[in-house]
């Protein structure tokens, strides 16, 4: 398939002369979910940042729909939703205000009803107007995850989305992932949990010798 | 030579300390730049030699 989604060819990265991965190649098409596994410090976050276009510390090729990321950046970013390790929210703003800003950045014209609905889905009903710093660790993470529901995208890149989320929440998120993938989206994620989604998915394990 | 004697050259009618200090410090700074370059070069070479030795050791095993 020439016009595939994300394609990675012979990716190589090192840190302080330690090779994190080399000759890494894979392909992620519409309707697929791919988990990057590996112990702490194996380079999962580094890989995801490269694929999101945040890091240029690599050699090799990353293609989106057959064209290299650099050339196709505008299209790629229009389709990408990246949620990293970081908080991703401003602590003094309320969840609603945070979402409004995130949507405006992406040019997604959502009414507040949509945003409130998204916050409701991630279980933050009643906390919409409270400043985020007064939320618990898991609740803050949920605000960040609410972006999944209000920003249209083709490809989700998620770095440990389950961090600090309770068990009920993990199940829900897994369901969202399933639904998104069934609807033709692609998901690339790292997690230390045992993922249970209704689809088949592949796992790429990064070097196990580091820790 | 413009000066009549070496001692006159050193004293420069009172301004000698300023002049010689300037030239002294300048020589020192310029020389230091060269010396630092040589040191860094030696260190770099040593580092590369160690690197090669380590590589040779692992490939021969």
């Amino acid at each position: 398939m020439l016009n595939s989604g994300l394609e990675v060819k012979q990716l190589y990265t090192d840190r302080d002369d330690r090779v994190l991965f080399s000759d890494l190649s894979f392909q992620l098409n519409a309707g697929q979910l791919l988990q990057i596994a590996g112990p702490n410090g194996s380079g999962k976050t580094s890989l995801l940042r490269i694929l999101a276009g945040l890091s240029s510390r690599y050699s090799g090729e990353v293609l989106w729909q057959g064209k290299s990321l650099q050339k196709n950046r505008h299209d790629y970013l229009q389709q990408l939703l990246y949620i990293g390790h970081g908080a991703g929210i401003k602590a003094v703003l309320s969840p609603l205000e945070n979402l409004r800003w995130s949507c405006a950045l992406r040019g997604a014209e959502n009414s507040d009803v949509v945003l409130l609905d998204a916050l409701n889905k991630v279980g933050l009903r009643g906390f919409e107007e409270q400043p985020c710093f007064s939320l618990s660790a898991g609740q803050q993470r949920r605000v960040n995850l609410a972006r999944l529901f209000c920003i249209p995208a083709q490809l989700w890149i998620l770095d440990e989305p389950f961090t600090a989320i309770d068990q009920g929440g993990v199940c829900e998120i897994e369901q969202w992932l399933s639904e998104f993938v069934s609807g033709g989206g692609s998901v690339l994620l790292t997690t230390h949990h045992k993922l249970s989604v209704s689809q088949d998915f592949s796992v790429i394990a990064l070097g196990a010798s580091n820790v | 030579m413009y000066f009549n004697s070496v001692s006159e050259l050193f004293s420069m009618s009172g301004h000698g300390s300023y002049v010689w200090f300037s030239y002294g410090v300048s020589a020192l700074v310029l020389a230091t730049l060269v010396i630092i370059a040589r040191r860094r070069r030696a260190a770099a070479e040593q580092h590369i030699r160690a690197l090669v030795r380590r590589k040779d050791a692992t490939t021969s095993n």
Partner: protein
Amino acid sequence: MSSTFHKWGSPRWFYQFSGRLLPWLAILSLLLLVGGAVWGLAFVPADYKQGNSFRIMYIHVPAAAVAMGAYMTMATAGAIHLIWRMKLAAMVMKAIAPIGASLTFLSLLTGAVWGKPTWGTWWVWDARITSVLILFFLYLGVIALHQAFENRDAAAKACAVLAIVGAVNIPIIYWSVEWWYSLHQPASISFTGESTIHPSMLRPLMATLCGMYLFFGWLLLLYTRIEILEREKNTRWVQDLICGESR
């Protein structure tokens, strides 16, 4: 054009080419510097106004002039690095910063020492002096920024941005300081105008000036070559070069 550019951009080619240039630069620059200094120190007649302290000029003026030229070279290298992604330019940029800062420091120091016997004070807020002080700060900024980064590539790019911004500002800074000084102009202090410099005093200055330029070029090559070795330490040609082909 593009092929020569490519060649120039290749660290390996540069290393070999500069190797041939090094001894010539070293000999010529030292000859000119030492010769000019001896000439200026011992053989030129004293200035009728300043007496013998003017002999500091033969080191002060070259240091100041080369320091300014060095900053512009650094900014140009930075621009080349950003636009054409030429790695060699980044190495040149990194090499220039400490040399330029040292020369600026020298010109400040020798100027201050010159000021004590002529003006009776170590320091005045003269336009040119102030500008050189600011130039010194600009150099320190580039060096500090470079040191603050862990990652070499990011450091090079960030310094390139800063050097360019600084270079755009240098003319503005010089010109505004000049204008500022013309507002105040304490009449008691003035530079020896160029017209009063006797041609016989000028010739050694030309010698040390050329010598300083060549010396700068020599140092620049030395530091860039070290930079090349450090960055390309994992390549075959560097390892062969240092350890001999017969490993």
